[in-house]
């Protein structure tokens, strides 16, 4: 459960979010809007990477301002550019990096890493350098490294923007199978088509909120 209560965010003298209020209990929530409308800021509020200037954000029953570390453990975040997110030189090492603070035995880490890589179709690449993967495979690896920690919520900021159609579909397919709550910022409208709810942002405010058809229809009209 994610809640925004009259959230304002001011960055570098600009009002980036201007009074956002919403309760998001749905399992699949999409966010669309023009460039600069505040989507990334909204997403970053959910794991405490950004904090509200006024108002409050509640995630998993906790205020993000006071429980940043705990919330970060419960909220996985997938960025647009997997190259910025993969921090270890090889595929398996990057997934293992996520597990470093778990205090697991070496064999247990190896087992979980292997299992996770297999689930994302990367088992054959375990010892390959990350930079040998295709863009889509890199994004799957980034997702795998997030999901191996089994977060309660997954937030994604334009996860398919850099991917070709085939890899976008592959990521969408993986998302469909996730049991977690997912919040996805995206311009990839087909990705959001079977979501439970879509928000439309414009200049830091929610201007439409409803089913994907309604919200995306509104967004299309707005962009026309």
């Amino acid at each position: 459960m994610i809640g925004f209560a009259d959230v304002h965010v001011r960055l570098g003298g600009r009002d980036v979010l201007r009074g956002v209020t919403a309760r998001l209990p749905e399992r699949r929530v999409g966010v669309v809007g023009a460039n600069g409308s505040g989507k990334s800021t909204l997403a970053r509020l959910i794991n405490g990477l950004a904090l509200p200037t006024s108002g409050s954000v509640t995630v998993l029953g906790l205020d993000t301002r006071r429980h940043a570390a705990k919330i970060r453990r419960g909220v996985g975040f997938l960025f647009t550019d997997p190259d910025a997110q993969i921090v270890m030189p090889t595929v398996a090492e990057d997934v293992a990096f996520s597990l470093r603070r778990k205090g697991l035995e070496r064999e247990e880490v190896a087992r979980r890493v292997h299992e996770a890589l297999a689930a994302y179709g990367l088992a054959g690449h375990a010892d390959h350098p990350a930079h040998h993967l295709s863009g889509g495979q890199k994004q799957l690896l980034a997702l795998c490294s997030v999901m191996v920690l089994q977060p309660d919520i997954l937030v994604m900021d334009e996860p398919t923007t850099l991917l070709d159609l085939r890899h976008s579909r592959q990521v969408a397919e993986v998302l469909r199978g996730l049991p977690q709550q997912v919040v996805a910022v995206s311009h990839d409208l087909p990705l959001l088509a079977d979501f439970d709810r879509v928000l439309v942002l414009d200049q830091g405010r929610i201007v439409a909120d409803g089913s994907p058809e309604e919200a995306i229809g509104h967004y299309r009209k707005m962009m026309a």
Partner: protein
Amino acid sequence: MNGLTGAYVPGSSPLHRLPAGAKLAGLAVACTVLVLLPSPAALGGAAAAVAGLYVVSRVGPAAAWAQVRPVRYFVVALFGLQWVFVGLEGAAVTTLRVLLAVALAGLVTLTTRTSAMMAALERCLRPARLVGLDPFRLSLLLSLTVRSVPVIAALAVRVREAQRARGVERSLRAFAVPLVVSSLRHADALGEALSARGLDD
């Protein structure tokens, strides 16, 4: 680029199975011995030993060549200069020392996962704690550096192509400024991603 990034060649040879710390210590000892070996004959023996280790490691000739390839011009230049100044024997000794040290260091990289190397380094760096440095962060810094080489290289290619498309061929400034800007942007994104992955916890 292969010399640094993803140089690890998976395998199960005795060298692969040796702990990373032992390999690093062995490398340090071997390099000291190389410096102490006096004659071309002794170094020839050392060269045979290094070649033998490569055979045992089963990494293959291509991977082996990739390790020494980056220093090939340097080695040739070194040999030439030494020949002129200290004679043929001295030149052979110095050049072989450098070449064998590089080959041995390469062998360690080829047979050791970065994570194992990191763990070993973390242990070596433990005394750094005494002066207020965090060994985990130091070894993470090394991994990030290794990981960033291909990323920045790809950025450089992109910047270069963009300049070419605009008809700018040979301006260092037109190349360097956008590369620095995009590298900084990458560093920023990386920092944020590290926070998201719980580095600050």
